[in-house]
């Protein structure tokens, strides 16, 4: 049954036509949910106040399934973009929101996603100020795709730059790794396994804001290890800064269930996606203080120091294994695929 008396049970092609049905869908669900003065301007876009340099980032979300343990595609679409703006040392303020809906999506599911977007935007302190809705024929999409663009201002204390990374810097992560990827995988067709693994999707802009307020220039770099995982971020750091990265396998925080699921499926948690943790490269002298601050923060209670910037092996990431051996860590090539035995 439709959650709104004026709307049918499922989304139809005409909801993307730009005509009356589009109007009904927007009025009944989108405008009522996101109600704010910028949307009420009813322009083709939004005119928003912002002074000085602008931080901008865009991302598209195509996750399947659209609802998963610990979140949904709507929440992900907000947090993902908010976090990208924050990782540049920005304070995100406004979001654009584009939907590509496959006809047949249940209206209740669409409403659930929109409400989830609203909750996530409120939690992050950003406003949805403009958007777009398109509907494609059945079979031409995968239920719903979402694109968001985030706009904000640079943090006054932020000096985030790859060039600032120096020998002796420490690499911190703000929580246990690999939860999001394993939560999604555990619900994929053909791979379903019973677990209580939850996606870690959350906003990180408040953590970034608080860290920059407290430590400013001592923080040299933020990155969120989404697709490609922590290894992807560390490889970028090594390659782009030209410095050596040394990681310690035993220092990685990881939930017991996530670690076990990775073992069973033959996946390396270093390559598995995260959606609610950040990597920070910080000045070695204040790293213990920064770590303690993160661990006391509601968005960083599981923080840990996982490695450091070293003079050896410039441009490469090396990991010390649990038995004291060393190996090189390469970025993910293609998709990480399950092993045969």
């Amino acid at each position, binding site marked *: 049954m439709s959650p709104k008396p004026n709307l049918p049970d499922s989304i139809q092609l005409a909801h993307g036509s730009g005509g009356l049905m589009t109007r009904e869908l927007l009025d009944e669900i989108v405008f009522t949910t996101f109600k704010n003065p910028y949307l009420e301007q009813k322009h083709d876009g939004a005119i928003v106040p912002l002074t000085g340099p602008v931080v901008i980032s865009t991302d598209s979300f195509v996750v399947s399934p659209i609802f998963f343990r610990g979140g949904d595609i709507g929440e992900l679409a907000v947090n993902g973009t908010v976090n990208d703006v924050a990782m540049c040392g920005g304070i995100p303020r406004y979001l654009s929101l584009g939907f590509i809906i496959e006809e047949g999506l249940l209206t209740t599911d669409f409403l659930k996603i929109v409400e989830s977007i609203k909750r996530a935007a409120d939690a992050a302190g950003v406003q949805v100020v403009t958007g777009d809705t398109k509907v494609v024929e059945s079979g031409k999409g995968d239920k719903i795709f979402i694109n968001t663009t985030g706009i904000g201002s640079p943090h006054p204390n932020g000096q985030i730059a790859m060039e600032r990374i120096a020998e002796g810097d420490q690499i911190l992560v703000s929580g246990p790794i690999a939860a999001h990827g394993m939560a999604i995988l555990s619900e994929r067709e*053909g*791979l379903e396994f019973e677990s209580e693994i939850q996606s870690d999707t959350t906003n990180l802009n408040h953590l970034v804001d608080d860290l920059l307020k407290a430590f400013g220039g001592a923080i040299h770099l933020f990155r969120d290890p989404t697709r490609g995982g922590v290894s992807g971020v560390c490889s970028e750091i090594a390659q782009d800064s030209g410095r050596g990265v040394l990681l310690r396998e035993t220092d990685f925080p990881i939930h*017991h269930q996530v*670690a*076990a699921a990775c*073992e069973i*499926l*033959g996946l390396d948690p270093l390559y598995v996606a995260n959606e609610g943790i950040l990597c920070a490269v910080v000045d070695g002298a204040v790293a213990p203080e920064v770590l303690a601050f993160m661990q006391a923060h509601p968005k960083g209670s599981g923080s840990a120091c996982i490695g450091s910037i070293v003079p050896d*092996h410039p441009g*490469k990431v*090396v990991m*010390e*294994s*649990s*038995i*004291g*051996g*060393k*190996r*090189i*860590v*390469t970025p993910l*090539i*293609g998709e990480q*695929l*399950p*092993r*045969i*035995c």
Partner: protein
Amino acid sequence: MKYLTEYRNLEATQKVLEQIQKAVTRPWNIMEICGGQTHSLVRNGLLDLLPEGIQMIHGPGCPVCVTPMELIDLAVTLMERGVILCSFGDMVRVPGSGLSLQEAKSKGGDLRILYSPLEAVRIARENPEREVVFFAVGFETTAPANALSVLQAEKEGLSNYSILVSHVLVPPAMEGILGDPFCAIDGFLGAGHVCAIMGYSQYHPIAAKYKIPIVITGFEPLDLAEGIYKAVLQLEKGEYRVENQYKRAVTEAGNLAAQKVIHQVFEIGDRQWRGIGSIPNSGYVLRPQYRGYDAAERFQLEEKGDTENGECMAGAILTGQKKPHECPHFGKKCTPRNPLGAPMVSSEGACAAYYHFASTT
């Protein structure tokens, strides 16, 4: 994680490494059979921690690497004919003579990556109008589940399910390597998971005939260190017998229920090994009464013969005659992204292990 963390313990592993150091009086070449063992050795940095004289030679136990290229071509042909092709994830990036499975998928083929062949049976049940084929590759480890899928399809009366079989066996491959007059291998680490299924009684004659120690070994760093230690002790004393390091998973008789399922569905037959060639009685083929489930017969697929890329020295890699970095194309013309051969793509391939994890200097 019980049965894992204690086998990744720093102190325990170091203690065994010290014992190896004390026991060694001369160089020894030890081959680990299984690609999973190769990866663990390299991934954990164990190779650099072994005494200098201990040379680990990487064996042929990578099922993906030894699956003939023509089988991949046949799988691609099936996808082009509209079949739902189900496969373990490892296979999908391995180059065929034309396309890999992944490339065939991007051109519209229906490829499903699965963990269990029983999932493929489910897909067949749910898609009665489509033909569903499972790409049944692997050593003795994957054979029971693949055999079980045939029995399950038979039980359910599914007429749209079949398997494309490329099953290979460890003991004939070991004999193939040992029979080479240039073979310089002094001892073996037996493949723990293969023996968990098959037991290890069939290895006694090999140890006796070739006067070579065979230590059935697990996959964690402590397992591998212990396996190497046991092999070294035998070698130093001039002994040659089968020993079982991996007692928590392997018994002499193995998993009898799994063996029963295998023998019900499969019989021993000749097999082509990619990069190595034909080895008599080295694999499984479907028994005559189950030939109806043989995708190659059902779709009258014609094997085109070996079309291997001449630049790939997979054969020398798989038989331990060359190390991956001794190949002139390693890391240059041949990378996991643009592989010349299977050992660079498979998660158990020696070249992939070296590319991803090794050479920290």
